[in-house]
């Protein structure tokens, strides 16, 4: 039972980690809400799906999906920059438009990938459990590579500017960073990642669906908030970001999978998704200070030399 839950979590959760990362970039780093990610998730799935069915190499199909998501992000950016719509509204509009576009791309509401060459084709013939484990391994490899690349990016000059841009806009402008540039970068990357996640998902589940994006933003946001909860504010910011995305995404999935396994009807899953987000937000407010105090104490024990001052400062802030 437990093993089943864990394997299900990996197989269905890992394809969503890119989406969580995308939501993280806009929500946590830029402190903004971009609902385009729902549309670009399905759009990415649709583009990859149609290409895979046409016999295109699945890796090429995934790259095309990411490019399609990037283009969707650029459309939202254009609405924001030229029509001065707030990102929230621009994303809502683009999300609707993308539904029709995805339906056009797919031709039908759902598209089966049965018998097609996907990134899992090599491991699929294995029997039951072994196939799931092999699928998890492939997905895990991709996700780890992606997170590592993102961590490296965050340490570059551009990545550093992005990390600062959401928190303190005046400061970042005074250092010569253009908001427009950061908006383009963040919405482009986040939607490319979301579409990439869609492309992974359809190959894992064996079909693309025009409605598959619905609820993905809340799921991503819930994962991000959950992830932030696990991590104390000390240490390297880059490591914290990457771990928050990975842990948040997987734990969120674990909750949903466990709910299903314990007999919850599939129709109630959306409610669980919403409820988990609410609990994560509540926990942020009520639990975070306590967790923070605890982690400060832990660190004190580990490095007794110079951390008592830090603990004092940390406590006064917590």
């Amino acid at each position: 039972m437990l093993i089943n839950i864990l394997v299900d979590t990996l197989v269905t959760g890992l394809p969503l980690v890119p989406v969580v990362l995308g939501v993280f970039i806009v929500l946590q780093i830029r402190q903004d809400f971009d609902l385009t990610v729902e549309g670009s998730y399905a759009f990415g799935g649709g583009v990859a799906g149609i290409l895979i069915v046409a016999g295109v190499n699945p890796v090429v199909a995934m790259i095309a999906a990411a490019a399609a998501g990037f283009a969707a992000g650029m459309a939202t950016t254009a609405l924001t920059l030229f029509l001065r719509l707030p990102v929230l509204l621009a994303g809502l509009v683009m999300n609707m438009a993308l539904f029709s576009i995805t339906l056009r791309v797919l031709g039908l509401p759902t598209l089966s990938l049965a018998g097609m060459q996907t990134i899992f084709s090599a491991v699929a013939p294995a029997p039951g459990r072994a196939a799931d484990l092999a699928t998890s391994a492939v997905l895990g490899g991709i996700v780890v590579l992606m997170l590592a690349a993102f961590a490296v990016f965050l340490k570059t000059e551009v990545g550093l500017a992005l990390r600062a841009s959401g928190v303190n806009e005046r400061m970042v402008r005074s250092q010569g960073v253009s908001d427009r540039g950061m908006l383009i970068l963040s919405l482009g990357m986040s939607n490319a990642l979301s579409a990439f996640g869609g492309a992974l998902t359809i190959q894992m589940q064996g079909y693309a669906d025009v409605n598959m994006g619905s609820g993905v933003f809340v799921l991503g946001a819930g994962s991000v908030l959950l992830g932030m909860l696990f991590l104390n504010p000390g240490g390297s910011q880059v490591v914290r970001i990457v771990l928050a995305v990975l842990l948040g995404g997987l734990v969120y999935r674990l909750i949903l999978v466990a709910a299903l396994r314990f007999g919850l009807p599939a129709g109630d899953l959306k409610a669980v998704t919403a409820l988990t987000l609410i609990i994560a937000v509540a926990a942020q407010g009520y639990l975070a200070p306590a967790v923070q105090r605890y982690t400060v104490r832990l660190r004190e024990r580990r490095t007794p030399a110079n951390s008592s001052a830090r603990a004092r400062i940390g406590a006064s802030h917590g």
Partner: protein
Amino acid sequence: MADPMLELRDVRLVYHRGRVDEVQALRGIDLVVDKGEFVTVVGSNGAGKSSMVQIISGAAKPTTGKVVLERRDVTGWPDYKRAGFVARVFDDPRVGSAPELSIEDNLALALARGKRRTLGFALRGHRRALLRERVARLGLGLEDRMHDRVGLLSAGQRQSLTMIMAGLVAPDVLLLDEHLAALDPATAQRVLGLTAELVAEMDCATVMVTHNMDHALRMGNRLLVMSRGRIIHDVSDDAKSALTVSAVVDLITGVGDVVSDRSLLTELENAE
């Protein structure tokens, strides 16, 4: 020898133009500041000091008039584009640095001020060493806390860090808008000393707004008094050295403006 770094030509700034709450923040500012000049600016609340600073930094665009930096007309340039010329230290210590980032990351961000940001690592070996050395000069022990979040620092430490950040890439114009206002007197004194040191090294045009008459007199080689959107007095060198705190207060109140309690308090303190 006069080498103008910064020029404002008949700059006017109107907020809420055409509305009932229209404010004429600047009513025709003409100013030339040369390289190496250090200008202090005083004036009652609402005189337009911050507005003038924002016009220079590009955070506000003049309603009419021109802004010239290093003989280049930058009137239409947004603030981030001017960042290669202009370094700013804000009145609120929280604005000058990003709390979530480490000390080192904040410094690295400032190391690329006004330059094209690349996909190279922001912190490379020799940069780390340079930043550490700069921070060590503060004498606050921050060089041993390079990985700590800036949010953990005190207001004085953050403002000191912002000063160091402003000097990492030598600016042509350094803008300080009440940058000591949020600090306790002892810390303000220390950051003031740091200001003098950095300005002496940088050889730029410096504009420092302050409500502290004593600081306005002790620092720099030129004093501007502003009132209701205009520069009403412009005193340089020897004439400035000859001024006393009460004479400056007279200059401000002479036109019917009030000097804030804060300024009078510092005057009393200094009289003691």
